[in-house]
């Protein structure tokens, strides 16, 4: 019988007894390529799963360990041997405890490959809010957008505490959403879904801050874009040099990282354990 994970999406099913586990937050309707796109090009001869968040609205009260435990339960139950843990953006933070736990029950620790890994902070959470609001130009006026962004900025300045900032921004988003989403004729349930999606995502970012990924990152490979506000590019040169074992940099926008053929080749090499550039 084929095992179906409860908390992960299956991205590749080739009947292998080895697994690549990809850590990401795929449930936002994100417009840039994700692990599904990478896998479509990579075509590995292994199973590939992607972590899925708890259903929107059910995350209240959960901590990072709850997220990680749910995903690990799937992995343990499957009996698959994990050869690599991948992480995208903040997914890279969760990749650390995932890899650490898996290493505790396997002979060999999984490889860890991080794509533009970043630790969440107030700036990151605020940026997501700011950009999301900017994207509502089809339903909000310029003044409304600017006002909402100004409120976001104030919230950012007021709250050093991440959960408080997240709560405030979620509530601001609910306010603007109520106005804008009603205008396009969305019914209350759908409006609620959109707000809950944002809330769920922000919660994911907040709990990620509970994790210290650095000890695992130090032995990981990072694959970096050149977008200045993403991944390791936000770090100072000194910190950047020591935070991962290997940093492969590409002249790519963050959004292109998981669909670029060059990246695919490097990942393929890294997964095979052969040095890149050997062919």
């Amino acid at each position, binding site marked *: 019988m084929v095992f179906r994970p409860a908390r992960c*999406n299956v991205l590749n099913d080739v009947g292998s007894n080895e697994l690549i586990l990809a850590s990401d937050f*795929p*449930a*936002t*309707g*994100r*417009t*840039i*390529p994700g692990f599904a*796109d990478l896998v479509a090009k990579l075509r590995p001869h292994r199973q590939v799963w992607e972590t*899925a968040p708890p*259903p*929107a609205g059910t995350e209240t009260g959960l901590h990072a360990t709850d997220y990680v435990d749910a995903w690990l339960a799937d992995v343990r139950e499957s009996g698959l041997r994990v050869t690599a843990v991948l992480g995208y953006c903040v997914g890279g933070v969760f990749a650390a405890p995932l890899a650490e736990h898996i290493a505790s029950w396997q002979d060999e620790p999984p490889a860890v490959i991080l794509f533009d890994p970043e630790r969440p902070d107030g*700036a*990151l959470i*605020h*940026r997501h809010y*700011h*950009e999301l609001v900017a*994207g*509502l130009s*089809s*339903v909000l006026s310029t003044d409304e957008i600017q006002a909402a962004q100004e409120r976001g900025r104030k919230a950012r300045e007021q709250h050093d505490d991440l959960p408080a900032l997240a709560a405030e921004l979620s509530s601001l988003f609910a306010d603007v959403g109520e106005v*804008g*989403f009603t205008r*396009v*004729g*969305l*019914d209350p*349930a*759908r*409006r609620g*879904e*959109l707000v809950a*999606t944002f809330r769920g995502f922000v919660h994911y970012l907040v709990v990620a801050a509970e994790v210290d990924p650095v000890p695992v990152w130090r032995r990981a490979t990072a694959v970096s874009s*050149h977008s*200045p*506000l993403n991944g390791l*590019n936000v770090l100072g040169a000194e910190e950047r040099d020591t935070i991962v074992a290997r940093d492969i940099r590409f*002249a790519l*926008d963050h959004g292109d990282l998981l669909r670029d*053929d*060059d990246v695919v*080749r490097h990942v393929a090499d890294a997964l095979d354990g052969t040095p890149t550039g050997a*062919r």
Partner: protein
Amino acid sequence: MTSPTETHPATRKEEALWLLETMVPGTSANHLSLAFRVEGPLRADALERALIRLTGRHRALRTVYRATDTELRRSVLPPGQFRLPVGDIPAATGDAIRDLEAFVAQPLPLDGTPPLRAGVLRGADGDTFCLVVHHLVFDTASATILRDELVTLYEAALAGRDLDAELTEPAAEFTEPEPSEAHLAYWHRQLAGFDRQSLELSYGRPDGPTPDLDGEQLTRDLSPEIRAAVRQAQKDLRAPEAVILLSAFALLLDGHGAGPDLVVGSPVNVRPPAAERAVGYHINVVPLRLRVDPTLTLAELVRATRDTFLDGLAHSGVPVDDLGDVAPSAATTWRNPLFRHVFNYVPTVGDPRFTLAGTPATLLAVENGCSKFDLEFFVMPSDEGIRLRAAYRTENFDATEVAALLERYEALLAGLLDHAATPVAEIPLLGPTDRAVIDAANATRAATDPATVPAAIHARALATPGATAVVDGDRAAGYRALWLAAQDVRDALRAAGLAPGEVVAVVAPRGVELVAAVLGTWLAGGVYMPIDPDHPAQRIAYQLADSAAPVVLAPPERAELAGEGRVLVPLRAPREDRDEPLDAPPTTADAPAYLMYTSGSTGRPKGTLVGHAALANLTAHFARELDATPDDAGLWLTTFSFDISGLELYVPLWAGGRVVVAPDAARLDGAVLRELLERHDVGIVEATPTTWRAVLDAAGPALAGRRVLCGGEPLPAPLAERLIATGCRLHHVYGPTETTIWSTSAVLTKVEGGRVPVGRPISNTVVLVRDEAGRELPLGVRGELCVAGDGVAFGYHDRPELTAERFPTHPVHGRFYRTGDVAFWRRDGALELLGRGDRQVKLRGNRIELGEIESVLSRHPEVKTAAVVLVDAGGPDAALVAFIEGVGGPELTDSVWEHARGELPRAVVPQEFVIADALPTTLNDKVDYPALLRLAEERRAAAAAPNATDPADPAGGDPLVAQLIGLWAELLERGDITPDTNFFAHGGHSLMGAILVQRLEPLTGVSLPLAELFADPTPRRLAARLRAAGAQDSAPGAGTE
């Protein structure tokens, strides 16, 4: 240091400076400096005191910026809040200017600290003070103000006076007002419809794979004569000096490929008189739109420029960064969307010398090592002359190229007075160096003696009648026998009714009979038209009909060639010798010699009529260049219907040597070629790059010491290197049929920088590189290669309009031919070819030379040849497809791809690489591009097929999928939705997704959570979810799952 309390968002103008730094991290492009050297020691404590007072006095110097992840905010520190330490600048290099430049280049972080720093570089003969300030709070005018005040305060500090008692008048302050609606409207009108692609020069290089802002400068002092000429032009043309100088800059850019509609940035100091001495960033670079219409006279251009310039000044209160919506940028780029070239008129450069506390001091210009613009001209007039400083991006230009620009600018200025009434397109662009190099290359006069090829061969037949002229397999024919056979042909043609000047179709394989046919045609006063007997019947029929040849010389068995009024005259072989005189040919140099059909890339084949003088010139030149002697043998390898075959035949006969007939197999099989070369001791052999590639492995070892010609299509550098390595003497030749076989030649002894020049014009040949307006272009500027001189053909047979278009007349050089090939002059007087003009394509706004991409791909060690085509040109799916013939199999793709990514800008890396055993070739052994294009399009169609077997029904008969496709198409406003289109990767976002799932409810009866669309965002996958959730297909008869 306390943190500022009241913060404000930065202006767009300020934000633009910051964005540049986020796009090119680590750049010091925004760092400005005030530096001066004093002939004595400087006291740091006195400088520090002076600086405390200055920063207290000038609000701009206390303004700090904090960059967050989404924006830049500004605040002002209260006076006295910070002290600017004046430390020693490390003397690290021993070169003061370099040490200062390093100091200027250090980061000025936008982290809430004041973006400035000061230091002193100590030296044995004096100290140098340097203040580095971010452009956000500073500009050139600020430096002058600060220098004056610093002198006062420093002197007071040294004297122990109270600094608060100095400079008691309040510092001027200036807050730039919001641009007025009227001014914004002015710029919108000015810039409407501007296409920034017209800013690209046909000079220098495009950006590399990862653009930087590295810059250099070059300074040139123009002579007093030029100063006087500009003054006189001001009077004659009634325009301010800045306008005269700007007009010449526009002409210069236009002459280098920008324009004719172009925008030049011009920095303007926007301080009002009352705030003249305000420190801060009060420069606006106004985008002046100048139209360099080639039909305007210079005086008219200056008038138009004056109006634009003065209007621009009057509306300078609008920062260009507020005009982003005029030219929305398609891609995130550091470049200003409106201009790439800047004209910076600096009329008031004062004396750099001054006195500081009684000690002589001199202002120094310390550069930040960057250039924000491709090219910026600082024009600094003074009473004595005009100083020009050109700052440029090193990625786009090298120093020699910029020096040449300055020289040409000087030449343009010098010629202003002579050209006031001259149309812009006729104003010479060349500087003295350009003129000297190009004239030297075109100094090709040489005598052509005898005057025609038949006269030369006749002379050989009389002088050495028994010498072997043609070796054809086991047969050989001497000169006298050949000439007698030609006389037989002449007699037969006359008997068939041929009149002088008429065309004789010659259908024969290479051999003695063909040579006799050609010579016989000439003896009869006719014009031969070669037809390859192996060419397709349709092509032969077309040529016979189009040329209206009344006679065909062909083997008797080709009876089908006669008819429609055409007579077939059988070919003649030499007979036994007989006592008959060798008649002199009636040919004159001004008579036509042959009619040559070429297919061209589009349209029907056309016949080019070439004269005897042209053919004789080519033959005489190459007999000299190849050192052909009576002992020489030349190989006749190329099909006679390709004009280059003529060189292989006529050069040996002109020299009294032997022509060795090669079978067609020698073009494909290197072993056959090698055997021929060795058996007949052939000295001269010619082929196209395609042929050389095919035969080089086997024939290469036999080429040492021989004279090898290669031409007819682009010669990739690696192939040139392989040919040179054989030990042959390699002649790289170039020329179109219309200027008689070859027009330029280079003897290549090595390949430098992956470039292979086509050399210099051959005898009696003048080459011009011209732009679209017909201007002769200087060294390094890419334009159409045109050929004048003795080789120019009469024109196209029966195509007067095409002839008039392609063969215009030059006032000095007479009739010339426009080749349609893109080339430029190198500094050494050789020409470099970039390929066909029609191989310059546009892809997503980028101008692309397909030949350039091929040349880069060919440099991969395992690539034998590369051919790139653009499929779906102009369409939404336009893509570059590279066909590669290489050593090794399909696994070569990855490594070529990697090579391409490393060497080419991203926009021109081919989307697809196809490894082929051999590329298709034309009848003349050139790469067959139309065939490759068809192949590429077929591949794309085939690749698209599995997803949409029937374009009329992409859903494959599934009504639910069809319904979803309709919904996708409606919401995303796209017509290209397939069952596998990812909603979120094709313009959808979460709000749209919510609308989509809500709309699905009444259609399917299923209320699907939004999260399920996130998980399965394609019509096919969502349909499966919907069915699993019990969706009802609304179409009758569906729902079979």
